[in-house]
């Protein structure tokens, strides 16, 4: 199964490389996107010394974790974005259903965006800076928690993307609301959750748990306390919450597939 995934993904990458000019333009474009996005944050950091009581390096820790998790999720699960929407609109999803592998697997393998690694690299650099500068006590626990949280974060964002795609089964086009939650959420959680009001915090912790991709772990690593009472050890809940959220997403996907009525062709 994994070998098949690699084959399909490899084919996608080779297909993308066929249009050389376009590929490099996209790479350049995306490089510019991440570069200027980061410049935006860097400029803000430069002008202002702290954000809600968090120093620049501490915010960089948050930003780095989210950037890596989100970019990895994007790299893997973009099949659930435009390709899936096209399948819905053009009725080609039926061909997926008759394949010998699950529809989820087929949609997942239909796209693989190598260029998202540009964002991952940027995230790792920022994370590296943060870890180098911050006085974090490295114990086996903290050493384990960081990569574990990032993996959990990747899973949570992937699940969110899948949920967004599943709504397509009913609405044909992905509603703008999902972009608010993925991109808006990623943007919002790049800053400490303590700066937002109760609504936003609750949504990003308990409804769409992307807050768990970085915030409690940052609290734990930095030995900070959350002014709203979220305990730092909640960071250890990131993996089980990610697993739960993924289960929900998968169940929702299965529901969507079962209710799917082809547009007919």
């Amino acid at each position, binding site marked *: 199964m994994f070998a098949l995934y690699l084959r399909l993904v490899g084919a996608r990458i080779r297909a993308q490389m066929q249009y050389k000019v376009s590929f490099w333009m996209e790479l350049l474009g995306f490089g510019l996107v991440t570069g200027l996005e980061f410049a935006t944050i860097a*400029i803000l950091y430069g002008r202002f010394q702290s954000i809600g009581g968090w120093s620049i390096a501490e915010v960089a820790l948050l930003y780095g974790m989210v950037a890596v998790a989100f970019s990895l999720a994007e790299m893997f699960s973009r099949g659930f974005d435009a390709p899936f929407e096209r399948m819905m609109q053009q009725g080609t999803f039926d061909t997926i259903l008759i394949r010998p592998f699950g529809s989820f697997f087929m949609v997942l393998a239909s796209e693989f965006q190598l260029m998202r690694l540009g964002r991952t690299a940027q995230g790792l650099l920022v994370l590296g800076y943060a870890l180098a500068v911050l006085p974090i006590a490295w114990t086996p626990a903290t050493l384990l928690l960081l990569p574990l949280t990032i993996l959990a974060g990747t899973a949570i964002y992937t699940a969110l993307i899948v949920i967004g795609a599943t709504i397509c089964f009913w609405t044909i086009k992905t509603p703008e609301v999902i*972009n*608010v939650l993925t991109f808006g959420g990623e943007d919002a959680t790049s800053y400490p959750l303590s700066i937002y009001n109760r609504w936003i915090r609750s949504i990003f912790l308990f409804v769409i748990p992307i807050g768990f991709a970085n915030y409690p772990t940052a609290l734990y690593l930095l030995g900070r306390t959350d002014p709203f009472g979220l305990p730092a050890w909640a960071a250890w809940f990131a993996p089980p919450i990610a697993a739960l959220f993924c289960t929900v997403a998968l169940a929702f996907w299965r529901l969507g597939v079962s209710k799917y009525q082809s547009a007919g062709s």
Partner: protein
Amino acid sequence: MRLYYEIGLRSFRRATTYRSAYIAGVLTNAFFGALRSFVYIAIYGAGGSVAGFSMSDAISYSWVTQSLISIGAGWIISRELMQSIRTGDVVTDLARPWNFYGYWLSQSLGERGFNLLLRGSLTYLIGVLYFQAHIPTPAQALSFAVSIALALMLSFAFSFIVNLSAFWLIESSGIMMIANVMLSFFSGFLLPIAFFPPTLAMIARVLPFQGISGLPAQIFLGQLTGTRLAQALLLQLFWCVALVGAGLLLLRAAVRKVVIQGG
């Protein structure tokens, strides 16, 4: 002339029918406006002013730019022309008895006019109600109206040029990405240009994009008055003329070199 007015009117009316789309749009824009506001509140903390922006200025600025998304302030919002080029429908459009550029211009003004009036003002209203966004004086509102009219034209002119690139490029996602990031960053949409470090600020000042978001927003907040206001409006006008001219030239070149896909 009457024809283009009718085209614009129809485009305006068509935009009014997508009710769930613009309600979702208002909520989306308002959500991001709220996020930005919270970040500025946390950043400014005790208060103070940076590069001429107090906390309330920065918050209001974010709400203005969010409200302008629907006129194309943040990224290119219309790909219809590009799609008509991909499908080959553009050939029939070019053969019609009216001016091609004029058609797209009127259609765009109609749609964006509606977006501005409804979606834009509702978004800003939320900012006023929940984040005490700045309420303009009559003078500021008037100069803003002039500025935004120019911004609408400028935004369309730029969008037209980028869409037209489909005549020459097989795949446009790369150029779209580059165009959008240049627009969102250098227009002052993501951050006020006043915050930029000197080199980036200089680049922003020689590019046309500030006329789409940054300048109108500053005029709205009353940061540009007197001669500086006149200079800003003239700059917008200059870029309008330049980009419309460039668009027309490119259109002529495109018509000569039509490559049809599909059909």
